[in-house]
Each structure stands twice: as C-alpha cells, then as structure tokens.
C-alpha cells in the first residue's frame, strides 16, 4: 500500500510526475475505453484516491508473447503500472525471486489478499492425462489456476490461448488444452484475446477496474466491447480501396506498393472484430495490414482452426467487388454478431440453469462468422 493517507496522485507528484502528465494518461485511457471525455476527471479522481491493489500474473501453456506485449505498453509504461497503479507481486518472466521464494510470494497473496487481488492468466491449461503437460513447482496448471483464480477478485485472461486454448488447442489438440473460462468455470472474468493481446486494451481494463471497481461491459465471449465491438474491415485504412475495387493481386505488385486492399491475399478483416486499426501496436506505430500483410482475425473465436488457411480468400463475403456500398458488408456482419449474441444469450441462460453453472461450455458457443457465412 501507499504510505498511510497518501493518494496515487500525490505519490506521482512526489516522484516528479506532473498533474498534467497524469491527466494526459487518464485522457488516453478514456479514449481507449471509448468513454465520453467527461470521464477523464472521473478516472483521474478515482486513480488519485486509490490504494494499490495486488496483481499476480500466471503463465501456463504460453509463449510469453502477452508478457512481452505488456512490456511494450506505452500508456502508461509497464513500470508506471508496476510502481504506481498496482503492486505486481508475481510474474515469473520478470520477478526477482525464484523457486521457493517465488512460490511463497504467490501463496502469500492467495492467503493474505484473498478476494481482493487481480489475476492475469496467460497461456492455455492442459486437462489431458491429469494435467502433466504443464507443471510449476511440481503442481499442475489446472491445480494452480483453480486455487489462484478462485481466490481472486477478478481474472483477466490475456491472449488467444488463455481465452479458448488458442494455438495449443488447435486440432488435434494434443494436450487437451482449454482456456481459463472452461478450465475454471464460474469466475468473475474478462477475456482479452488476440495473438498477443494489445497492451493498450489490457491496461485500459486495469484502469477501468481501478476507476469503477468493476470490469468493463463485455460481449457474449466476455470480451470488452470497447476493444472487440467493431469489425476490423469497417475501421481499416484500406477500406476505400475495397469499396473501389482496388485489390492487391500479387505480393509486391503495384497495388501492394500503393496500399490497396488485401482481401484477395487472404485478409480476414471482414470477419474479425478488434480495435487493431485504431490503437495499433508499439506506441501506435503500425499494425499488420498497414505493414502489408492480411489480418489473421487473431481475436476471433478459435481463429487458428476457423480462420485458416490464412492465404485463402474468405468465401461468400457479401457484395464483394466493385460498387459495393460501403456499409453493406459491415451491416451484414454486425447483424450476424447481434443475432449470435441474442441466440447465444438465450441458449446459455437455458443451459446455465440446467447445469447450475454461470459459464457456457466451449463447444456450444456461437461463432459470429459462421452466421456471416450462412
């Protein structure tokens, strides 16, 4: 905790961080969260008063790409998060302690901060063969996830693998890998898919939680709407070329050099929801389509299997070709998403009552893109 009676904003001030810079940060967060600008003051006010909550970050069947991604966070830098917003007490990739000392740090949080701390989970959780495909300190990932996540105030699943098993669960799923939501049902949870997650969004979720005391509004996959509510195709800087029928036909051709639409090269933007084109990556420097390659729809459900082959043109995209009206494809797809939401909502409510669970099972989840195709 901060010294008694000291707020975050005064701590920042003592550290040479000006009020103005603090407000700039709050403004950036509000923009990412798609809140009205009047919330800047609210965010600043809440962060100014808050005491530092504890966060632990667990890594299971992961590649550490989401950890690396958070290290690249620009607003605020990871250090500011670590030192100023949260007490980040367990994260294998960067923490000082190892072995027994690391285990003890985690156990201390689970016991002493019970019901108050946040847990971030990265990587899939293998369920096959008693969970032997991932152990930490001799304990299985599922054993650890149950203990640490069930005692947390809220869980944040970062990256595709922690959401739905990701690549690890792609067919034939050799280790029986699943995402956190399926591995440990019933948690207060938010999913931050993407391969990796975009740190701007994850930091925004943390700020939302610190400001409002709850997780932001989510869709049927428990993804925050501010980040996953819009189709990439609708936000794409190459969209005008799609509408005008200007396509890249071969890698390195004139259209490729001029930044034309990558649809024919396999871009999955029309079936992908994410705010990639707006928040971009690495201090807003770029994103894959800007850099010349199609979108993989990496924030879509089970994208490794449902969106591959990645170089194959999307089938049955409505209105494909010259003279398509700008909103047509978006309308069809957003309609499908809304339909899926309603259908899913009813289905899961019925199912949840039947099972006495709050979370739907993986296999029964609706995939918006399937609706778009049909």
């Amino acid at each position, binding site marked *: 905790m901060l010294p008694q009676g000291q707020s975050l904003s005064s701590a920042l001030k003592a550290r040479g961080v000006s009020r103005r810079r603090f407000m700039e940060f709050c403004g950036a967060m509000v923009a990412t969260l798609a809140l009205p600008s009047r919330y800047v003051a609210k965010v600043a006010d809440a962060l100014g008063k808050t005491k530092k909550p*504890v966060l632990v970050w667990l890594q299971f069947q992961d590649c550490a790409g989401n950890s690396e991604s958070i290290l690249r966070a620009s607003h605020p830098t990871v250090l500011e998060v670590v030192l100023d917003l949260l007490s980040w007490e367990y994260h294998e990739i*960067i923490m000082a*302690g190892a*072995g027994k000392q690391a285990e003890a740090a985690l156990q201390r949080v689970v016991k002493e901060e019970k019901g108050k701390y946040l847990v971030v989970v990265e990587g899939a959780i293998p369920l096959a063969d008693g969970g032997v495909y991932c152990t930490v300190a001799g304990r299985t990932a599922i054993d650890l996830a149950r203990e640490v996540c069930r005692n947390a105030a809220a869980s944040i699943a970062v990256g595709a693998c922690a959401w739905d098993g990701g690549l690890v669960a792609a067919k034939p799923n050799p280790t029986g890998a699943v995402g956190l939501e399926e591995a440990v049902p019933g948690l207060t949870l938010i999913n931050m898919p993407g391969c990796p997650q975009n740190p701007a969004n994850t930091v925004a979720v943390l700020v939302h939680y610190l400001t409002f005391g709850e997780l932001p509004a989510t869709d049927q996959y428990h993804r925050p709407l501010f980040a996953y509510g819009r189709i990439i195709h609708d936000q794409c800087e190459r969209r005008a070329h799609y509408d005008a029928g200007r396509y890249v036909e071969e890698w*390195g051709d004139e259209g490729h050099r001029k930044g034309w639409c990558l649809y024919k090269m396999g871009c999955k933007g029309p079936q992908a929801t994410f705010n990639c084109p707006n928040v971009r990556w690495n201090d807003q420097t770029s994103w894959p389509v800007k850099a010349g390659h199609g979108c993989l729809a990496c924030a879509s459900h089970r994208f490794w299997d449902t969106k591959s082959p990645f170089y194959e043109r999307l089938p049955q995209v409505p209105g494909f070709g010259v003279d398509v009206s700008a909103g047509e494809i978006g309308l069809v797809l957003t309609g499908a998403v809304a339909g899926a939401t309603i259908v899913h909502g009813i289905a899961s409510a019925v199912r949840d009552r039947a099972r006495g669970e709050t979370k739907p099972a993986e296999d029964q989840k609706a995939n918006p893109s399937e609706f778009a195709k049909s």
Partner: protein
Amino acid sequence: MARIVIDPVTRIEGHLRIEAQVEGGSVTDAWSSGTMFRGIELILRGRDPREAWIWTQRICGVCTTVHALASVRAVEDALGVEVPPNAELIRNIIGATQYVQDHVIHFYHLHALDWVDVTLALKADPAKTSQLAESISAWPKSSRAYFKLIQDRVKGLVESKQLSLFSSGYWGHPAYHLPPEANLLAVAHYIEALEFQREFIRIHAVLGGKNPHLQTYLVGGMACAMDPNEPHAPINPERITFLSEIAKTAQTFVEQVYIPDVLAVAGFYRDWFGRGEGLGNFLSYGEYPQGGIHDTSKYFLPRGAILGRDLSKVHPVDPAQVSEYVTHSWYEYSGGDSAGKHPYEGETRPKYTGPKPPFEHLNVEEKYSWLKSPRFNDTPMEVGPLSRMLVAYASGHAEVKELVNGVLTKLNAPATALFSTLGRIAARAIETQLMARQVPKWIDQLYQNLAHGDLRVHNGEKWDPATWPRSAQGWGFHEAPRGSLGHWVQIEDRAIKNYQCVVPTTWNAGPRDAKGQRGAYEAALLKTPIADPERPIEILRTVHSFDPCLACAVHVTSAQGRRFAEVQVR
C-alpha cells in the same frame, strides 16, 4: 548432502526446473527439466506450408520472429525458392534488431538481479554514483540529481512495503559484491532499459506490423512492400528515416550504457570467469546472408563448430550431423529409446512417466524432461552468443576479433576466460555492439535499393501450390539470439507431412543422452559453489547466463506417417 530444487526458475521464458545435488558447499550433479509441453509440430500436420511460419512463430513470444524466419527458409529450401535481395536485407534488419532487443532485455531485466542488490542502492551516495557513471561513460543521464531521483523512487517502494516484482529477491545475500553506487547505477539503467526496449522495437512494428509476433513474412520474401513515391507503402523514404533514427539511438545506448555496465559489473565478479564453464563444445549455423542463402562464405557471422575448447580449429557443420535422443525425455521412439534420430526421421510420442503431480522430486535416473537431447555427431554442444562469437573469433572475423580483444584487454583476462558464466555475458554484450553497428548499415543498403528502383520484396514463382512437386523436404535455420535453430519440413500433396524443430534451448537445457552425457546447463552447473542452499543464487547466475527459453525448447511430432487430414478446417 542435499537436493536443491529451483522450480519455477524465473526471469526466463517458460517453465524450467533445476534439481541439483549439493555436497561440501558446491554442486556435484545437476538435472535440467522442461515442465511444459504443447505439441505445436503435431498441430502443424496437414496444414498449408506457406503459413507454417505463422504457427511456428508462436512457439515463443520472447524469441518472436525467429521461428518465423527459420520456417519460411525451410519451406523455401524445400521448394527451391530464392528471395530477392530486399527481402534478405529486411530479414537481416529484423533479425539483428531482435539480437539487440533480446540481449539488452536479458542483461537488465532477466539477469541483472543475480548480480545487483536493489536494496543496497539505498545506501549509495548519489554524488559518488554520478562520479562512477561519468568515469565509465559519456551517457548524459548521469547527474547527482538524476540518481537522487532514482534512489528516492526505490526508497518509496521499499518504505511502502509493497515491493511488487522485487518482493521475493535474494537481497542481502553474501554473493552480492557490487558497491552501493554501482547498484544504484544499475537500477537506474534497469529503468532506462525498459524505455529502450519499448522504443527500439518500433523497428519491428514498421517492418512487421507489430511486436511480438510480426506478421509480414512470406514464403518467397516479405510482405512489406517498398515504393519511393507512395506515402502508403510500408517502406518508403519517410519510414527509412524513421528506422535509421531509432537504430542510431539504439547504437548509442548500447555503446554508452550496456557495454560500460557489463564491463563494470564483470570487474566486481571476476571469480565468475572461472565458473560455469560447461561443455567446451560450441556450435553456430552462421547467420545473415549477404548474397543468397546458399553462399555461406558471405554470411556476416560464420558457420562452424569448436570442439574441446580448441580455438585453433573451426570444424565444418552440416545439418545431417544433427540428431535427437529421448533416453531421458518423456517420449518414446519406435526403435527403442537408446538411439538418436535425425530430424527428417524424427518421431515423438509423448509418454509421461514422471511422478504424479504434485511432486517433490523428479526421478532423474529415468526420464525427467519434456526436452529432447540434441547432439552434433553424438556430441553435446553449447549454442548462443558465446558460440557465435567464438566461432567468428576462431574464423578470423576482423570486427569480432577487435571487439573481443578490446573487452578482454579491459578486463585483463585471457581468451580462455570466455569459457565461463561471465564469458557468456561478455560475448552477448560484444555481439550486441556488433549487431547494433550493423543495423544502420543494412537500413542504408535498403534505402539505396529503394532509391535505385529495386522494389522487389517477393519472389512469387512458387507461391501457387500447383507449381510444387508432389513431395519435397527442406531445412531452414536461424541463429536466433539464444543460438542455433533448425526447422525441418516435409511436404506432400501441398500439405505439411512432418515438421521438426531443433531449438537453441533444447541444445542447452536438454537432459542427458543415451551415453549419459550431460546437457550444457547440467555440465555448466558442476562445481558451482553454493553459499546458502535455501537461496541458491549461484545456480541462477549460471543458468541465466545461457538466457533460457523453454517455450522454444519443448516440441513434438507424432509417429511418422500418420496424417491429420481433418485439420484443414474451412
């Protein structure tokens, strides 16, 4: 006599467990175990080889980009595709950038806390720290006031009793030897390096769309199109200027912060020149082609092997000499577990025979790791920056010789001192300086090509699978930051039939083989002094000096011949 267990080994990528036997205050035997397994190679079967790089890149998010490069090279080798010079240059820039990025992060964020006691920084005199900083470097952030600010920050953290990621360190351990001022300096640079890595990696964002997990590789070249006159071209003069500026800033940081810090820290830990020696066998596939992948003589870093610490001879390297054992790994081979297999014949059937979790100790007499044991002519090898620098040094690489000799002179150490824990740290720093110099040169070459109208980034001759033979196989490699990486791919009927990766940390962290020969970590830990078995910081020092990456190291294929045709979901 005691068995020490470190699990999780932290400040690494992935899940590593070390068990060590300690007698009379030092390590008498050690076992290295990877405790996580995903099966990515199995998942690859039946898929489009052109997208294998997208999948294999996810083997690791720390070593992002490295598996992508090895993968496209493997498929290009199988199909007989040569990439245009621009694609070669862009790949070199991305690869060299990754070296600099990874090595800086390794030193400051993964390794430094083994040598730096953060809490001792509180006892430093900021004025003396300023004097120390100015005596070793021209880096401008060196005032007394600056170090006072950093010290107050640490003080605030300690007084808050919420130490965050620093809460569980081995602070106060007798093995820490730095004076308080050097600790404060290191803490300041730990923070600066966080800023550095965030800024520097924007080079990858320009050329790859994002980092981690770049998205512009293609079999046959790169997807970042070039045009001198198009504002929306991924590479144009404005972007080149942007890249050049970042690269030059990075070069300054490496030369004025990283290198002086390594020299300063090494000066206080000279006894570690005599510890952690390990195998004495070093392998490098060579890297950075500058005239096509087939002309190894033009590689910026040479290919070769050094055996038995003999720097007078560099042995030739052929990928046919590589094999993998599973004698002590949780897999089984159809022909029995005592013989090695070349990756083209590679098969792996996961078969866990370890203790039922939760467990206290592994059964190290039997199988004890998800890592296999790669061997070169049946010999265990160390891979990584030390191997590359030694092979380059022994091959007479002028720039490497100059840098290595410069560092050895400053530390008053002979070349044989490099066979050590500290030697790995020094070699990594030397390589960073070498590659930080090289990045701007390659960016400039790319600009020259752009200016002279050579805009080709992709060779599309074999893009259409209809042009492929019915079956083909190929080898792709990359000298990744952590060492020699090889991908072996077999293609049949336009789909992946078999895929095998032999990865740097598998070379270094693998278990014993059929002959009982130890892997590189296991060998390097022998004779390590242990002051306090409850806080075995000395083990971390040597293991971290290799820069472990366990996600990379564990992989699998299924039994030969079985196809997973159903994986092509549409």
